Every structure is written in C-alpha cells, then in structure tokens.
C-alpha cells in the first residue's frame, strides 16, 4: 500500500504541472480578454522571478539588474519590431541581454556582497540614462512606438518562455553545473579549491538568467505599444523579483512561482480597487510577510502541513 501511495504521489507530481499547463493553454478559447492579459502579466512576473532565482537563489548574489536586462529586451522589440517576426525578436532580445550579462558579469562577479548589489542596480540607472541621452541627443526622440501583437499570441509566447525557463532551471539543478553553483553559494573559496572555475559558472548562469528576462521584455513591449527609457528600465522591476521570491520562499522550486503569481495578482487587484492606497497596502503586506513568514509562503505551507500530520499522529 505504501508503494502504491508513493507511486501515485510521484506520478501526480509529474502530471500536475502538465495538466495545469494544458488548462492554461486552452484558456484563450473560453476566457475573456481581460483574464488573458492579466495572466500574461502574471506570467511575465513569474518568468522574471524564476530566472532571478536561477542565479541569485543558489549563489546568494543578490542581483538588482533584472530591470536592465528586461529593458534591453524592450528596446530590442522597439528597434526591430517592424522588421522581424515576433519569435526572432524575442530570441534577439534574449541574446542581447545574455551578451550584456556576460560582459557585466565578467566585470563584476569578482565583487561580493553589497558591492555586487550596488553595481547591478547602478547598471539599471546607467542604461536608463544612457538610452535617455541617446534618444534625446542622437535620434531626437523620447519614446518609441512598438507594433502591437494580439493578446492571445503574447500570452502563448509568454507561456512558451516560461516552459523553456522551467526546463532550463530543472536541467541546471540536476546537473554537476548546478551542484557547483550551489557550492559557490555555500562556500566560494572551498568551491574554487575543489576545482570549480567559480567565475565562469557564475557568469554563465547570470547570463542564462538574463536571457529569459530579455526575452520577456521583448515580448511585453508589444503589449505596451508606446515605450520610453523610463518605462523600459523601470527600477521597480529590479526589486519585484526579489520581493516575489522572498514572499514565495526560495527553498523550493515552486516557491518563487507561487510568490510571483500571488504578488502579481495582488498588485492588479489593489491597483484596480484601491488606486490611491495600493502602495501602502502592498508595503504593509510585504512587512507582515517578512516578519511572520521568514521562509515565505512555501515555508508556511510546509509548517502547516507538518503540524497537521503531527497532530494526526498524536491522536492515533
């Protein structure tokens, strides 16, 4: 009986994501446009948060660069939107961010702790003001128009990016590369003395995570129709993945997903219901979450599950 339970548990763990995915993919057939747009936004946050966790989770290097990589994707879309088909734009947006991350990573990943955090955030500001300067002084514009794409198509592409991201994350976690990444987070010196080329492992992972942020940016730009540097390189987008990952709990693979999904929905809900107080309520929820759920939602759920099973054992 025990074996049967184990098997059914394991297969349900395998099938549940597939079922959810099929459900999501068939949603545009029946759901209203608003739901599709909301889900796209939610999945954008999930993609950014999960790709942030891919690097910052195991290594403990807190990157505040997501907005920079996202913005590079956005501008790729704005520049090439009329010339190339959407999948190519998404790919190029991702690659551009990948290359930027390789370059920036090679420069900064020798930095540790606070210095790295500061630099990555500086990168967002640097790019924002550079593009702003460039647009005003060289091209003589401030904003750009991005050709729109239909909502359902954007939704499907976001779903595809998400699936590829999860596949990449899963592959890395199970590989020796992933083990090295974890070792770096736990003791970088020891990892280096055990033969791990720590700089290379860090830079490559940083770049892979940037790829997905850039891809998401390139795709999302098509939904906004008009963009300028302040929209593309919105610093808030650097903090969101950190908050969402902490809110969800970084210990488990699904923690950041749940965190991002709930957070993104909450944001939408609060903006529409309480447009003036939304930031205030948002902040309060965040503070409460950090004080009472140090391990995030996932930690809370596990604690509840544990205490309920323990209670059952005590009674029998």
């Amino acid at each position, binding site marked *: 009986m025990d074996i049967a339970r184990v098997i059914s548990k394991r297969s349900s763990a395998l099938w549940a994501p597939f079922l959810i995915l099929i459900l999501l993919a068939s949603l545009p057939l029946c759901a209203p446009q608003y739901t599709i747009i909301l889900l796209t936004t939610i999945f954008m946050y999930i993609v950014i948060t999960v790709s942030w966790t891919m690097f910052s989770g195991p290594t403990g290097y807190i990157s505040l660069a997501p907005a920079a990589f996202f913005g590079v994707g956005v501008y790729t879309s704005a520049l090439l939107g009329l010339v190339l088909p959407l999948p190519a734009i998404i790919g190029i947006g991702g690659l551009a961010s990948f290359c930027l991350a390789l370059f920036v990573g090679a420069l900064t990943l020798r930095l540790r702790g606070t210095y790295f955090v500061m630099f990555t955030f500086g990168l967002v500001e640097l790019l924002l003001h550079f593009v702003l300067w460039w647009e005003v002084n060289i091209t003589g514009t401030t904003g750009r128009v991005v050709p729109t794409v239909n909502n359902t198509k954007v939704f499907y592409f976001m779903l595809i990016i998400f699936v590829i991201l999860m596949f990449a994350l899963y592959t890395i976690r199970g590989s*020796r590369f992933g*083990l090295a990444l*974890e*070792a770096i987070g736990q003791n970088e*010196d020891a*990892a280096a*003395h*055990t*033969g791990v080329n*720590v700089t290379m492992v860090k830079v490559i992972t940083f770049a892979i995570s940037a790829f997905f942020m850039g891809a998401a940016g390139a795709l999302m730009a098509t939904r906004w129709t008009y963009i300028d540097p302040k929209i593309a390189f919105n610093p808030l987008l650097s903090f969101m993945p950190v908050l969402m990952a902490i809110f969800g709990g970084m210990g488990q693979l699904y923690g950041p997903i749940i965190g991002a999904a709930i957070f993104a929905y909450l944001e939408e809900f609060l903006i529409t219901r309480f447009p003036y107080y939304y930031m205030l309520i948002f902040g309060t929820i965040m503070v409460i979450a950090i004080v009472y759920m140090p391990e995030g939602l996932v930690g809370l759920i596990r604690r509840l599950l544990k205490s309920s099973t323990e209670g059952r054992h005590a009674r029998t």
Partner: protein
Amino acid sequence: MPVLEGKGLTKYFGGLVAVSNVDLHVDEGEIVGLIGPNGAGKTTLFNLISGALPLRSGTILFKGQKISGLKPYEICRRGVARTFQSIKVFPDMSALQNVLLGSYFGVSPGMSSMEALREAKEILEFMGLSASSATRARDLTLASQKRLEVARALATKPQLLLIDEMMAGLNPTEVAQAIELVSSIRKNGITIIMIEHVMKAIMNVCERIIVLHHGQKIAEGTPQEIVSSETVIKVYLGERARAAS
C-alpha cells in the same frame, strides 16, 4: 624528483611580513610537517601554494611546472588539493555531494556521473564516513567535518595534499584515527604537507619537518633533529619538549 619546489616565497600584508623569502622542496611520497607559533605564516604559505593569495615575489613549481600565478581551480586541476584550518565544507549539501563536487571538478573533470558517484562513495568509505553520506555536512561532528574536508580534497585526485590543522579540537581517540588516515593516504601514493600543532601527530607521521617563525624558515630536518634543535626549542617547543624527548 621534487613534487613541489618553492623559491624565495614572499608575502606582505600591508607592512607586515607574513612569509619572507622561504625556500622549500617536497619530494614525491613524503609527509612533511609544517610547524611554528601562531602567526608564523604557515597558513599563508598554504594559501600561496594553493593560489588563494598572490605571491609578492618568488616562484612555485609543481612537478617542474610553474603554478604560481594560476587561479585556485587551475592549481587544483593540476593536482594540488587542500583542506582549511577553519572548516569550509558546504554546510547544506550532503556529505556525498561535498565529495562528488571534488570528483566532478578535480584533476579528471570529464568523468561520467556513475563513475564519479562510485568514486565518491569509495572515498567516503575510506575516510570512514559512509554511514553519514546522506547527512548534511553542517550536522556532522567536528571530527567528521574535518575528515569530510580531506575526503573532498582526495576526490579531486591530487598528487599533493595540503592538510591545515586536521587534529586541532579532536579528542585523543580521534587524533589517533586521524594519524592513521594520514599514513594510509600516503600509502596511496599521495604526497602530504601538514600544518599541525599536535606534536604527537607530527612526530609520528612526518619524515621531515619545516619550522616557520615570523614568516621565516628557521629550521628543517627530521623529527629528531627538530626536537633537539636549540632555536626551535627557544621559539616554539619550549624546554619541556626537550625533557620529554
């Protein structure tokens, strides 16, 4: 033929001379002890050899090839492994994973996962840690963590192993076990340099001892020569050691 050769090794920390013009050579199959008072520069010397710190001047040759200036991972892949005085295991990884990392990334990186796993298990067995292979490293006892560090270093398949204070903080039984381990590691053909304050261990297993004081090499010789050397007794061992020997 010397496995390791250091010429004129020098390192300053600001104005402080940590290691000053030290020459050393270690032959294949030897166990060399490195002793000296606290702050003598023993661990700094290890850091210079393993690439954790850059040299101010001097060169280090490993099997005749220059390794000074290389990065720690490159030196490790050449065949020099080390342990740390302040334990640096990967605390949230299992003992097996700690060792696996060494098998994956050491001297022969391209190994298949099956092979690496088999080898890691063998090394855990050899170090007497098979029972706790699934235990998180942070939950191991101090003695076991120290052995895990050695296991991880061995997994990289070194020819030269630098052991930094393996015995400190261990009880007499554990010290005896550690001494035995060191001898059996040497029997597998690995050359060893060990920093140690436990004199019993040093005297028992080392063929040659190098004494550092204020960053300088003040004596070198067999254990018998060292315990009877006037300078060494004056700066490090004290009169009691002479009485005991």
